[in-house]
């Protein structure tokens, strides 16, 4: 497409003698480029070269002067376009603003969609790389995991001929890293196999790709991390210290991982440092495993090999650990495991497994935003058409004169088309300026880092260029035909009346505009109310006035002393040591059995939290029954506190206290001492799962509940006592309400995007309506004059003018409401806790739109109705 455009362009201006060999050269470059850098690049390059070949010495002889003669008419057209724009500055302004805003919105959506679709495609052979995922069913517990057992990678590589390479990663940790006694709180640390860097072609800046992680205590870091820790020093072979206990050597520096990747790691520690990576456990799924196949078509073959593979490798351990035969368990439906491959290119947009590495992408969003973008542009184009026909009466005399002087219909069509293409170019330029100015806010809103999306080599400019021409032509074609078909004798006599047909067309256009606007308004209203509901729902725990100190494990055996000192502070109400913090999405689950359960498949998967005796007090957790852990009971090491959901799942609803729960192997058994009321310990967008508290040592965090309004004092005193115990290690903290607010980031983003587009849609539509109202009142000017002379009141006239618009908007509402109902119902069903489908929101949105629309029409109608009838009836 671009190539053909380039060729056309060159043939247009280039000297005919030179065309053949230059085009031949360009063709050669095209072949080379498309094999080296891909077809898309080559097409762009072709067009760029064709444009850049516009040089004086290569032009047709006398091309410029000849063109000038031919362009006299074109120049006249431009002049007319300019004059008609200037004559009605206000309308032109409305027109261009609407189109420019519409285009800018569309460009943003295009940038967003392009970015979303580009995920993970930057790796070499990205279509041959897959992640192994599994659907596991275990009694009533269902897991969809992107994690598989530790021996999986090794075994599939050995047994499946299609698998060329396999590598694992595990974890996404935050660890205190130090170098030369400078401490850094480093996040996004993972553990990876040496093969990881053979599968993923992440550019290596320092180090040997074949020996990055093949020895214990080695780490590969990203460029920006290297800069942060080492400054200008060469990081290679330097030793950094993890958590003040483990020395690790830097064996490689890679380029920062591009933002459009489904994982985001800054450090890759060798998997050899993890004992759990070689324990050959088939029954626990903890390792993200990537495989590279010999061809992307082999996916089906590999998927087909998994069932036999499962029987071969899992049976023995299932028998050992759970005392059942795998065949029987699978046959009875108690146990099911299906492993399959996911193309990595699809992970971000399509994969929706539990505990996904990076959430946020969804193909539904890509579709819905593309559709919204299309409709916003459509609304803007419709404005353009409606305004052009609305101003027809102004242009009618011009058309008449031109026709009388011998202008052909085709010349008039050309003229009007050119006018609209010109306007569309002006709008495009304004839109590009808007996009450039708003790009930083867009990046903040969408959490992306996009620079120069339009004018880079891979930017959107060719599409923008082509769409601008198409938009101009599409928006202009209808008015061009309408205007050019005026009969000169009629218009010169002053009879500009439009047939019923044109009015019908306009009505449809207006209905499309307003249905879209109403849909978007309902959508934002629902998203808004759902979020509001989630943010203010009763959590079951107290999130305010809690300070969470991080990395407290660094204090070692001083931690208890630190806690005691904090407790002595009168501003502090309670202190608890536990690495398990509500709303932080900690995962740590394992199945347990009720005391009378006989088979492993009756297991209930519990979220296990290790806490101390002060946990319930610090977080204000309410007890439904029994007691929380206490220092007075020495036996508490074998006690457990369950939440209500867990009690229900075990079937212990009557008198749960004192009953027992055993581990899957049956070796350990615990007594229930308390039942805690269900609280939202994880994201509000998830169901509350069965949960168990054990008394245990989990020294990663310390939570301080303090008295209200003493935030700064508490922070200062806590830091002071930290410094006295920690010996210079950095004081890292969060406030729980902040953590909680951050957990809504994605939803807030969708909400903002939706409301922005809703506001844009309704404003562009109203700009159009304003123009249309001008048209209609202009048309009915004489009618209004006569009615007024005959004694019609202001109110009667306004009703008359409002009636048709009200009707159109009601039709739009009837169309939009069922669609919005269907869409919002689907959207809400993703939330276990959600607002009802409140009909008031639908009615309110429709009425609101009607109100805004009538306000827009009102100005025109009021002026028309108040005008002296003489002015309306006089015809000069």
């Amino acid at each position, binding site marked *: 497409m671009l190539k053909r455009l380039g060729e056309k362009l060159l043939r247009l201006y280039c000297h005919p003698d030179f065309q*053949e060999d*230059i085009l031949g050269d360009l063709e050669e470059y095209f072949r080379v480029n498309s094999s080296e850098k891909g077809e898309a690049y080559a097409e762009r390059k072709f067009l760029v070269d064709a444009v850049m*070949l*516009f040089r004086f*010495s*290569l032009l047709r002889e006398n091309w410029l002067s000849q063109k000038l003669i031919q362009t006299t008419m074109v120049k006249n057209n431009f002049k007319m376009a300019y004059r008609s724009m200037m004559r009605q500055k206000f309308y032109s302004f409305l027109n261009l603003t609407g189109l420019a805003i519409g285009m800018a919105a569309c460009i943003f959506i295009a940038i967003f969609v392009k970015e979303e679709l580009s995920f993970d495609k930057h790796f070499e052979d990205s279509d041959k790389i897959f992640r192994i995922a599994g659907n596991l069913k275990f009694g009533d517990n269902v897991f969809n995991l992107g994690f598989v057992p530790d021996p999986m990678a090794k075994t599939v590589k050995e047994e499946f001929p299609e698998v060329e390479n396999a590598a694992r990663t595990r974890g996404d940790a935050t660890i205190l890293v130090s170098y030369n006694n400078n401490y850094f709180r480093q996040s996004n640390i993972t553990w990876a196999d040496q093969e990881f860097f053979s599968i993923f072609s992440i550019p290596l800046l320092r180090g040997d790709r074949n020996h990055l992680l093949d020895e214990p205590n080695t780490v590969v870091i990203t460029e920006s991390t290297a800069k942060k820790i080492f400054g200008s020093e060469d990081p290679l072979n330097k030793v950094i210290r993890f958590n003040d206990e483990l020395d690790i050597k830097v064996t490689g520096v890679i380029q920062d991982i591009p933002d459009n990747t489904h994982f985001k790691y800054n450090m890759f520690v060798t998997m050899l440092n993890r004992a759990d990576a070689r324990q050959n456990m088939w029954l626990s799924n903890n390792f993200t495993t990537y495989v590279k196949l010999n061809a992307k078509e082999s996916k089906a073959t590999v998927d087909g090999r998994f069932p036999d593979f499962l029987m071969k490798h899992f049976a023995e351990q299932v028998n050992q650990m759970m005392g059942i035969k795998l065949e029987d368990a699978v046959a009875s439906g108690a146990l099911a495991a299906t492993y399959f491959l996911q193309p990595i290119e699809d992970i971000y947009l399509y994969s929706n497994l539990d505990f996904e590495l990076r959430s946020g992408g969804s193909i539904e969003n890509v579709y819905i935003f593309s559709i919204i973008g299309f409709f916003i542009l459509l609304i803007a184009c419709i404005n353009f058409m409606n305004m052009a026909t609305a101003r027809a009466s102004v242009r009618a005399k011009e058309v008449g004169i031109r026709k009388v002087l011998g202008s052909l219909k085709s010349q008039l069509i050309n003229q009007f088309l050119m006018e609209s293409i010109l306007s569309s170019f002006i709008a495009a330029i304004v839109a590009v300026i808007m996009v450039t100015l708003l790009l930083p806010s867009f990046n903040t809103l969408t959490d992306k880092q996009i620079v120069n999306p339009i004018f880079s080599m891979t930017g959107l400019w060719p599409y923008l260029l082509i769409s601008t021409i198409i938009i101009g032509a599409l928006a202009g074609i209808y008015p061009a035909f309408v205007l050019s078909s005026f009969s000169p004798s009629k218009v010169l006599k002053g009879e500009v009346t439009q047939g019923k047909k044109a009015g019908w067309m306009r009505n449809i256009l207006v209905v499309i505009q307003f249905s879209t606007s109403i849909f978007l308004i309902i959508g934002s209203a629902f998203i808004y109310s759902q979020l509001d509901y989630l943010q203010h729902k009763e959590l079951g725990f107290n999130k305010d006035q809690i300070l969470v100190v991080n990395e407290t494990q660094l204090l070692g055996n001083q931690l208890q002393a630190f806690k005691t000192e904090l407790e002595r502070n009168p501003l502090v109400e309670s202190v608890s040591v536990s690495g398990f913090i509500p709303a932080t999405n900690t995962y740590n689950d394992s199945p347990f059995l009720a005391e009378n359960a006989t088979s492993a498949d009756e297991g209930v998967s519990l979220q296990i939290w290790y806490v101390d005796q002060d946990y319930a007090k610090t977080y204000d957790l309410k007890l439904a029954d029994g007691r929380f852990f206490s220092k007075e009971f020495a036996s508490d090491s074998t006690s457990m506190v369950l939440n209500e959901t867990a009690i229900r799942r075990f079937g212990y609803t009557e008198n749960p206290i004192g009953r027992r729960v055993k581990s899957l192997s049956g070796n350990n058994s615990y007594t229930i001492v308390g039942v805690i009321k269900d609280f939202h310990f994880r994201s509000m967008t998830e169901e509350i799962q069965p949960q168990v508290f054990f008394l245990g040592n989990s020294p990663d965090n310390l939570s301080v509940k303090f008295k209200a309004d003493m935030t700064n004092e508490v922070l200062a005193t806590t830091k002071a006592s930290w410094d006295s115990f920690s010996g210079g290690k950095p004081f890292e903290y969060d406030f729980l309400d902040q953590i909680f607010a951050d957990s809504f980031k994605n939803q807030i983003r969708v909400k903002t995007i939706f409301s922005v587009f809703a506001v844009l849609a309704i404003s562009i539509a109203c700009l159009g309506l304003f123009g249309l109202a001008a048209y209609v009142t202009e048309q009915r000017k004489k009618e209004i004059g006569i009615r007024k002379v005959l004694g019609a009141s202001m109110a009667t006239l306004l009703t008359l003018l409002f009636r048709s618009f009200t009707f159109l908007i009601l039709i739009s509402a009837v169309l939009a409401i069922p669609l919005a109902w269907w869409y919002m119902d689907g959207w809400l069903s993703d939330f276990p806790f959600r607002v009802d489908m409140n009909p008031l929101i639908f009615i309110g949105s429709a009425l609101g739109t009607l109100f805004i629309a009538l306000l827009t029409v009102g100005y025109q109608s009021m002026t028309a109705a108040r005008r002296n009838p003489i002015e309306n009836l006089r015809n000069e």
Partner: protein
Amino acid sequence: MKKFQLGEFEEIVLLTVGVLFGEAYGVSIKEDIEKRLNRKVSVGALQSALRRMEKKGFLVSEFGEATSERGGKRKRYFKITALGKKALEYNIQTRMDLWKQIPDVAFEFKIC
């Protein structure tokens, strides 16, 4: 002498046409300059330089064979003319003269 005037880029193109004797057409000239001089050459600049010099009479050109990777379009091979050779000689001569005229003192770089 105004008639032998050559720009820096023109001179390089002219020399390269000479180097690639018999094989000098758009793509090969561009590749050769890019490889030897390690600089990017735009198609537009190259083509306009070639046609300019052909007009001045430093180069002549003729069509060659058509190949399929060129979409059936013929190549245009360039050759240096006698006038082109003179222009090159004149250019190189004037530069050498200038070079020789530089006093030795001008090249005594010392760290003061």
